[in-house]
């Protein structure tokens, strides 16, 4: 039972990181109907930028201030990168066949991935251990570290914030309107371009938090990690029902717990394969994901 609870804690931590990254996929998919393959690479980029900022500022600031400044600066930089990505790779293809945009997204992914490799080299980089104090709290035999608490709390705050933004604000309503029908939204006086840019800003900034957590939690980062974390997060988005924000959160949590339980009880070398078996089974049983709605075929 204790092993199970311990894996549950670990799974929730990983799951909330997946959920943060998955939100970026699901929001872009909701508005543009496009799999943003470059999102995973933006996450990897954020881990590198965060490391640079931390190294520059280490020693000059207290740990808490260091973490806050790193997070804010990285989120801003990655949000700008997301907007540039939208401008250069996606906006010119808005009217093109859908598959062309997929290729453009794959091209953008190659550019970012290899850009990281050219700047920081092909070798893995290691995050310093001392950023978050290595403290473990004992909850009747189940250990939870300060880092895990930080991940869980920040992720939940961000996700609840996003939920209220999308459901309660004017811009969030515009975003939902664009997800349903862009032309109708435009006729209602919504500036669709502004909504899309906002989507990319929020999605990329959340991905940046995810990337920093990956760096601080796993500590080792590589230039090509974007594909693997990106795909896992994308699977999370699909499991929950893509285009659906609560779905991405649920999918991320489920995937994280599933991964941790497999790694705990079975072997970790099959973990990834079993993740995708889960995906395939869910796709066969419920083709639009757990919380997804049936989308009518266009005639």
């Amino acid at each position: 039972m204790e092993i199970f609870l311990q894996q549950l804690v670990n799974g929730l931590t990983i799951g909330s990181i997946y959920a943060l990254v998955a939100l970026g996929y699901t929001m872009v998919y909701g508005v543009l109907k496009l799999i943003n393959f470059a999102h995973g690479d933006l996450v990897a980029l954020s881990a590198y930028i965060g490391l640079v900022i931390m190294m520059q500022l280490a020693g000059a600031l207290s740990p808490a201030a260091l973490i806050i400044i790193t997070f804010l600066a990285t989120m801003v930089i990655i949000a700008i990168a997301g907007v540039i990505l939208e401008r250069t790779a996606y906006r010119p293809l808005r009217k093109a066949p859908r598959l062309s945009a997929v290729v453009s997204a794959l091209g953008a992914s190659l550019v970012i991935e290899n850009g990281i490799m050219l700047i920081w080299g092909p070798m893995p980089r290691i995050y310093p251990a001392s950023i978050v104090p290595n403290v473990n709290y004992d909850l009747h035999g189940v250990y939870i570290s300060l880092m895990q608490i930080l991940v869980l709390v920040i992720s939940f705050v961000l996700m609840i914030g996003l939920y209220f933004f999308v459901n309660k604000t004017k811009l969030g309503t515009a975003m939902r309107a664009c997800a349903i029908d862009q032309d109708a939204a435009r006729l209602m006086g919504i500036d669709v371009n502004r909504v899309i840019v906002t989507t990319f800003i929020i999605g990329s900034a959340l991905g940046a938090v995810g990337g920093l957590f990956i760096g601080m939690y796993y500590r080792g980062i590589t230039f090509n990690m974007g594909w693997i974390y990106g795909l896992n997060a994308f699977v999370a988005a699909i499991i929950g029902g893509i285009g659906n924000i609560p779905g991405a959160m649920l999918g991320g949590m489920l995937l994280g717990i599933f991964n941790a339980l497999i790694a705990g009880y079975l072997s970790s070398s099959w973990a990834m394969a079993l993740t995708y078996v889960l995906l395939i089974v869910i796709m066969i049983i419920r083709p639009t994901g757990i919380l997804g709605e049936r989308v009518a075929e266009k005639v």
Partner: protein
Amino acid sequence: MDTKKTLSYGIFLLILAALPFGLNSNWVSVMTTFLIYSTVALSQDIVLGRAGMFDMGHAIFFGLGAYATAILNMQFGWPILATIPIAIILPTIASVLLAAPIIHLRGDYLLVTTIGFNIVFTQALKNNVFGVTGGPNGIFGVEPLKIFGFTFASQNSVYFLALFILILTLIIIHNLETSKPGRALHYLNLDSLASECIGINTKFYRLYSFALSAAIAGLAGVVFTLQFSAVSPDAFNFIQSVLFFTIVLVGGPSSIPGVLLGTFFMFVVPEIFRQFAEARYLVFGIAMILIMIFRPKGIWPVKFGRIPNFLTKEQ
């Protein structure tokens, strides 16, 4: 096929046949890879370009063919010639079994599910499933092909074998284009609901396109094994599938010259720029974005014979 088209294919194939006599061995091996990957890309095009299904797991069938030959030869001592039928039949059966439950999925969901299949496939190879796949390093030392006492051991002989398979594929695709299943796939791609209403069995033809493309990819896998006399899981991971997917779209879906150009662009051009090893994929990514911006239907888009322009134009 009109004379102009026949003539240009003739010249193209003659140039390919003459190439090994004018190139050094390094480039012959690059061109052999080009021929093999062209075959796989053309088979991918049957599913993606002609039937219009987003299959991003095509390396599975390529890999199944390659591994079938390598395993039967190395673990069970079969001669290569005897393994070829298995290397065609096994991917065909696998493609039908894998595709049948997911064939109804809408575009992007199918794409992700096929990536999933591909990842499960490479993980199974890496974990040495059934103890015959050789784990992460793969299988080394596969014998060359022997037919009637002739051994396909030299580089040039493998090149001509690959060229033979490519020509065979071109003939199959030409026949497909002019036959009933080919037309069915074309209608299915344009509008699956309407084609079902006029009596096309969409599920059958979707599986048909998967089976045909898997058979061709499996055969290409045999040549791949012969070229390197080895197989390894990384040659068939999902990144390779993404590459085949991209080739078809960059070149131009359901356009044979387009797919060949796409393969050239994605496999041979990076070889030419090998001295800029580090930056070449960066340039490559930029090129992919630019091509899609300026030619969203691919470098060499297909032209459909007598269909009036206003009917084919994107609405």
